[in-house]
């Protein structure tokens, strides 16, 4: 041992991450020291500016052409092309989520007050509000950024927790239907903690096999060691359980509908877009960078998971009667479509870049459509809160054609109808999968084509329930005591507008967005 050496940290490359975490810490201090009446007017600009600032830093880094070719912070964080792309997407989507969080009436006045008690009434009438929501959202966003860019498993685990712990709490803070919200929080927490224990045990097994937890280190250990070592196989299975839970893939999807339904809608929007994007980034990094040499082992497993996820998501969505639950199952189906892209690996690097670019593009378009759809859900209200039950949405097209039209458009984009962004996302992923199946020497060929067929069938089933909602909105008579459509706040209007613009714009002119995704994917992941 020759003493400690000071680590080198590339502050410039990590600046977006540090800005978000720094603002979150300042937000906590504001909660501790600022008087109550000032807090909201400090927290809102702080959160918005830090997210905008972090996005600007990402853009500056890309514009300078300074995408590094080695991992930053002593090999802990990889700020490569895909990371920067994912950071940009997460930051814009979470900006939308914060604008929705900013609306009054989503969050409980005092989470500690028992629902229906005198305490709660008092908290409501005194106009109390939990401004802690803002720093919690920032911590969750910071965790998402780090999760997608982590270059070793320890950082990935810590990022997973930094992302999840604030979300567990945020899920339980809905103002209306508090029992549902608290139940969602409990379920998400217990299952999330359970799955991260699996992730951790898998990490321990892989550490036992490779002697390191750095992703390229694991890959290197596999190139010299045995690929049949039980430690390795057990390790990657358990690691896979933890990661697939986070994206909500089929045998581990049970939490998603419950949590999406119970959580306050702005938080659902954040989870459905940001968490999925970040978790896909982490899945790609683990399976492509660390376990790339093992693809003969994990691709058949992933085949089953992807097929199951698409079918379960699409079929169970049909039977749903709650709009948020239906969107949750739709999000499960989309996770399955994305897993098809994860399986589209090649021997040749430039072809891998094509599948990576397809996944990044899919994440971009899916994220915007999701945030927009949930923003619409916040606007349709009953006296007791949001009108969740689908029957309440009947005839909405006659009462407020504009809103129903926008929502119908988002649903068509989810279904992947041509001229919406969703079509190009699905097309890109399916095309990558088919071409990976037809490469020479790949015995998975017919299977990959088969999976794409399953994907197309699942899309067709999914299209059925999306269209059913559209028919319900436009071709049935509105109920006499139907829900009211509240006028959107400035923030919600901006969110819906931008989401609509991206969904239409990318649907009509996909090339600019595809170019950005191609450029981000061209360098693949840092190894």
């Amino acid at each position, binding site marked *: 041992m020759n003493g400690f050496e000071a680590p080198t940290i590339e502050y410039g490359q990590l600046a977006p991450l540090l800005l978000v975490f720094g603002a979150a810490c300042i937000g906590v201090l504001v909660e501790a020291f600022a008087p109550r009446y000032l807090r909201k007017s400090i927290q809102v600009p702080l959160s918005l500016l830090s997210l905008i600032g972090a996005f600007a830093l990402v853009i500056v880094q890309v514009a300078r052409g300074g995408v590094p070719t080695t991992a930053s912070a002593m090999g802990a964080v990889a700020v490569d092309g895909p990371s920067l792309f994912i950071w940009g997407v997460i930051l814009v989507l979470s900006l939308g989520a914060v604008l929705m969080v900013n609306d009054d009436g989503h969050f409980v006045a005092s989470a500690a007050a028992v629902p229906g008690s005198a305490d709660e009434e008092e908290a409501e009438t005194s106009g109390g509000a939990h401004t802690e929501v803002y720093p919690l959202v920032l911590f969750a966003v910071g965790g998402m950024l780090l999760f997608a860019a982590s270059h070793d498993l320890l950082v990935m685990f810590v990022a997973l927790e930094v992302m999840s712990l604030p979300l567990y709490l945020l899920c339980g803070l809905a103002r209306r239907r508090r029992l549902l919200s608290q139940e969602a929080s*409990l379920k998400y*927490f217990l299952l999330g903690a359970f799955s991260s*224990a699996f992730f951790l045990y898998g990490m321990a097994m892989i550490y036992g096999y490779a002697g390191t937890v750095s992703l390229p280190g694991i890959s290197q250990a596999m190139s010299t060691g045995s690929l049949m070592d039980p430690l390795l196989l057990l390790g990657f299975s358990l690691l896979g359980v933890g990661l697939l839970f986070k994206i909500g893939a089929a045998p581990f999807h049970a939490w998603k509908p419950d949590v999406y339904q119970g959580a306050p809608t702005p938080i659902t929007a954040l989870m459905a877009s940001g968490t999925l994007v970040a978790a896909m980034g982490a899945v790609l990094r683990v399976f492509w960078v660390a376990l790339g040499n093992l693809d003969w082992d994990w691709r058949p497993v992933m085949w089953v998971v992807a097929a199951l996820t698409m079918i379960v998501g699409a079929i169970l969505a049909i039977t749903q009667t709650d709009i948020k639950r239906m969107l949750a199952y739709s999000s499960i189906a989309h996770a399955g479509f994305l897993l098809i892209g994860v399986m589209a690996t090649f021997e040749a690097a430039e072809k891998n870049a094509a599948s990576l670019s397809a996944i990044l593009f899919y994440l971009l378009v899916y994220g915007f459509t999701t945030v927009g759809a949930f923003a619409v859900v916040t606007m349709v209200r009953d006296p007791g809160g949001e009108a969740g039950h689908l029957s309440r949405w009947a005839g909405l097209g006659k009462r407020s054609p504009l809103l129903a039209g926008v929502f119908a458009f988002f649903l068509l984009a989810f279904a992947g109808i041509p001229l919406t962004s969703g079509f190009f996302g699905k097309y890109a992923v399916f095309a990558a999968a088919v071409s990976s199946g037809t490469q020479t020497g790949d015995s998975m060929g017919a299977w990959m084509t088969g999976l794409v067929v399953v994907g197309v069938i699942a899309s067709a089933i999914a299209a059925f329930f999306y269209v059913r909602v559209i028919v319900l909105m436009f071709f049935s008579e509105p109920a006499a005591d139907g829900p009211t459509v509240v006028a959107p706040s400035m923030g919600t209007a901006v969110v819906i507008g931008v989401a609509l613009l991206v969904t239409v714009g990318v649907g009509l002119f996909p090339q600019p967005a595809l170019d950005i995704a191609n450029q981000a994917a061209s360098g693949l992941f840092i190894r």
Partner: protein
Amino acid sequence: MTTQYLILSGLIFAIGALGVLIRRNAIVVFMCVELMLNACNLAFVTFARQNGNLEGQIIAFFVMVVAAAEVVVGLAIIVTIFRTRRSASVDDANLLKY
């Protein structure tokens, strides 16, 4: 030489996982999750010994900190739901289904 420790760690992990699946009280379920995390720690330290590097021992410290943070959040959630429902049973939390 380290095999016994790994077997013990595997046993503790299995007991924890089984406990999460069969116990009904949210606090006990949560304790079982903590048991699983501790099994991970034991495995990390054992492998650190076996591999002859310190990484595993350092990871164990990180896991302890994460577990502590998880306790803070978890107990807050469980206590809130207990105050509302007067029950910490995971079977009673059954409003969200189908």
